């Protein structure tokens, strides 16, 4: 698994987010079609999470279009033991975050835009790629 290899710049960014926001346990960066790019995981199967997060984001975006509530911000799944949050990185990649019940949602909302921006840069996207998302 990628979490066992040398930390990459992407993984370092994910680790930094985990240390800045209380309650984040694991995270995954994937392409919009669900292929794993980088992972900061311990227990979850990173490739499965990547595939599922792409499906979640796609459904969320189509739902947002259908119901006319404006653009999609993020897709949140609330479970008995915690949360998953899926955020788009431009229109070609995404970030999935797994958190426990105490996930500091306010801090996540505060920190995630900058993280998304840096991940996009690391993935070689231009600012224009981000604004179209």
């Amino acid at each position, binding site marked *: 698994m*990628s*979490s*066992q*290899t*040398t*930390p*990459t*710049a*992407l*993984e*370092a*960014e994910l*680790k*930094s987010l*985990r*240390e*800045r926001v*209380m*309650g984040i*346990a694991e995270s995954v960066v994937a*392409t*919009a*079609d669900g*292929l*794993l*790019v*980088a*992972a900061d995981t*311990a227990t979850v199967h990173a490739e499965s999470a990547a595939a599922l997060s792409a499906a979640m984001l796609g459904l969320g975006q189509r739902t947002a279009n259908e119901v006319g509530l404006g653009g999609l911000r993020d897709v949140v799944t609330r479970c*008995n*033991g915690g949360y998953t949050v899926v955020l788009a990185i431009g229109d*070609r*990649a995404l970030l999935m975050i797994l958190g*426990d*019940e*105490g*996930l*500091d949602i*306010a*801090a996540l909302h505060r*920190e995630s835009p*900058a993280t998304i921006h840096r991940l996009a840069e*690391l*993935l*070689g*996207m*231009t600012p224009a*790629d981000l604004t179209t998302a």
Partner: protein
Amino acid sequence: MTGEPGLDTPSAPPAAHSVPDLLLTLRQARFTGSVLVSGTPGGTIRLEQGLVTAVETPGAPAVETLLLKSGRIGEAQWAAAEAAAGSASPGGRPADLGAVLVAQGAIGAAELETVCAAAVFDGAFALALGRPGSWQAAEADLPARIALRPGVEPGRLSEETARRVSLLTRLGSPPRELAAVRIRPSAQAGTAVARTSARHRDILVAATGRRTARDLAFALGRGVFAVMLDLVRMDAGHLLHREPATAAPGVPSVAPRTPPSGPPPISDGPLPRRIRGEQPLGAAAARTGTPAQGALSAPAEPTAAHEKSEKNAR
């Protein structure tokens, strides 16, 4: 937010320099509502007649987590109680979830009260570990879904919090520093595990090197203070290895961090693709660049850092 005049502006009243001060003032006013504390972690302190009935914060497990993660209450029982509490008072406020749980026989009243009180003290302890932010009182908030009734005197709460902080400090682990440390079992823990208690063994299993004391508390459904006390005791028994904190929490690193080889430029091309059996693209690209510093993959290093933390613990 409809705070009382003079109470909803944190810096204005000279009487309240701190949250404990504010709580004492609100106790005299027999205030019912919430105090919203911002900061890392922030939280919500619920008050009834000025008594603290619940503290909700990302920094410590809530009653719900303590009940569910510890297995005291099953998920099905919990869902049933939520459904009953929601429908109990049509149009009005939802019924107290704790009372419903007791009425349904999911937990005894005394046990629930113990857990609620523990959560209040633990939440206050976690708030005390955070960096202080601003705060404001709000009267209109709904009460906590599970609350300790009657609540704790705010004076007693801050006394107990101070006692907990000073106890850990006296034992050699100031809790604000301990809170930032990520823990994993030491090299010696493998042989010693048979002799440790089940409580410590659970911690050893859950300590992956990624979790702080707060994360362990959530994972195990225990209080943060209780976990910290166990960590200090286990540290004295050479069972733990403290991962050094990489960066000060709350300070995002903006330094250039692209490795020499860098991830491949993909701005114009298709999405990064991975061939089955190979490492993910980014991992493969950077392996040539950055030296191995993996906290997870590196073999156990029971040397310098560990001995240092041992000394500190004494």
